[in-house]
């Protein structure tokens, strides 16, 4: 079950790289919009993974799940942008570091 066709391997490497780029982006970027984009990168890495596995296994389940993930990502972006706009109205900045009223 483990031996993977070369093509799947390539997709997994791509998605692993994308996921790592996204995670690093969330950690080091200070602009909220960029953070949001980095999160989308992570979700898209998951989508690549799911579709690649779905193709290799010959089961549609993964592709259906991908559509769910894309839909949820759209909802997440909407909520995230609403929060960012509200933050901008209150603080006139969307820098993550400026948000430090709650120190934890």
């Amino acid at each position, binding site marked *: *079950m*483990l031996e993977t066709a070369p093509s799947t391997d390539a997709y997994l490497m791509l*998605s692993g790289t994308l*996921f790592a780029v*996204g*995670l690093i982006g*969330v950690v080091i970027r200070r602009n*909220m919009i960029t*953070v949001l984009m980095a*999160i989308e990168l*992570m*979700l898209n*890495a*998951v989508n690549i*993974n*799911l579709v*690649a*596995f779905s193709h*290799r*296994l010959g*089961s549609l*389940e*993964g592709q*259906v*799940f991908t559509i*769910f*993930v894309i839909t*949820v990502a759209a*909802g*997440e972006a909407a*909520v*995230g942008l*609403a*929060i*960012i706009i*509200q*933050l901008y109205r*209150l*603080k006139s900045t969307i820098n*993550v570091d400026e*948000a*430090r*009223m*709650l*120190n*934890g």
Partner: protein
Amino acid sequence: MSLNDLIFLLPEIILATGASLLLIAPVTGLRDSISAKWAMIALLIITAGSLLACSWAVPGMEQTAGFARMFALDAFSIFFKLLFLFVVAIVVLLSDDFLRESRYSTWEYYSLLGFALCGMMFMASGVHLATIYIGLELLSLSSYILAGYYKNEQKSTEAAMKYFVLGAVSSAILLYGISLIYGVCGTLNLLDIARALSTVVSNDALMFGVILLACGLCFKIAAAPFHVWTPDVYEGAPTPITAFLSTGSKAAAFAIFVRIFYVALPGFHLDWSMVLATVAALSMIVGNLAAITQESVKRLLAYSSIAHAGYVLMGIVAMNVMGLRGVLVYSFVYVFANLGIWSIVLMMKRHEYAGEKVSDFEGLHSRSPFWAFSMFVFLLSLGGIPPTAGFIGKYFLFYAAVQAGFGWLAIIAVLMSAVSMFYYLRIVVAMYLRDGKEADVTASGALKFVAAVCVVATIVFGVVPNDLIDQVSSSAKGLHNKGAVTRNATR
């Protein structure tokens, strides 16, 4: 979709329709004729009624899960769904004052609570990783908005922002884990995963997937080292929402944690149990030690809730009947003690963020002895002192850990419970031994009702726990049998 499928899903369909109606009610003529609170309570009662009716119908049906085996209505999910309905009903009562005195819209608030509840119910019933994920996201997205509901307060917006960023990242990590598990097992159905794993020897991709999945779930239950968001979000969110996050949404995360690990991954127990045991120990130590120095009651309870996540994780690590029952009992008793505490905190509070310091509780005994006594009972229950219900929960969890050979974990848990009594007693000392300022308790009928219900439940379930234990045992049975079968197949 057949009629049978409809029976499985009827309570959620009613709830989602009702929540959507609450959302559009303000633009119709309904706004003036009925109040949002009573509409929400009616919706909760109808949902609970349909849930009970459907749970009667299901045992007679030949299949155990509807919608292509994605959605189960078993005793385990019914237990949690009723608990969630109770939590949301209490949160509605707690929210009444806060919504009346603030300038924020009520209909959207209740609608979002309804959607969050719908997500939790999906999580409790999901036997397929897709169902579980959708439920989790429905809960999370509603919670992000609710945490920022004081939208003109910087603190609240900031809490929403932090919750959103960390929540979204943890969802992505969880999903990556799910995608790897899918790649190895070829399915997203929990039972099929268990079946596939009984033939697969442990491998790196699978191990990595399970660890990522566990990381995502640990974030949702706020276990250390994934707990950093908890104090900030609990402090910044409106207090009724803090009450919701610390009880309902936490219990829902425990439900999926248990379901995934007991049903899908029991054959893999030796590999993940040490990882989770470490996380449990770390949560208990970090949560309890950090709580000692907190001045804000909301932050103190946030750290204590991190510690409680550690206690519950012991039941999952133990992977035996006792542990499973322990998780259910503990979620149950924790809900009562915690909601009770939040109702008292809300009584102390006069405007948006006041009444949240430990010093605000000074002299509560001389002003209103009954509420001081109630607070005392809730704190004892959180600490796990015998006459209260919290003791029963801790007893199950500690016993399960010892039984499973995690004696060291149980010892850490007992020591840390002793530490936790120190900071719980700080509030008690403030209430009983210090002289209070003139601040008075402004309790509405709803808050008094909630506190009274919770104090009665905490004492009654502590003194006569038999009914609760019987109920929990029958709820846990189905889940553990499935786990036992797959584990035997592995050996």
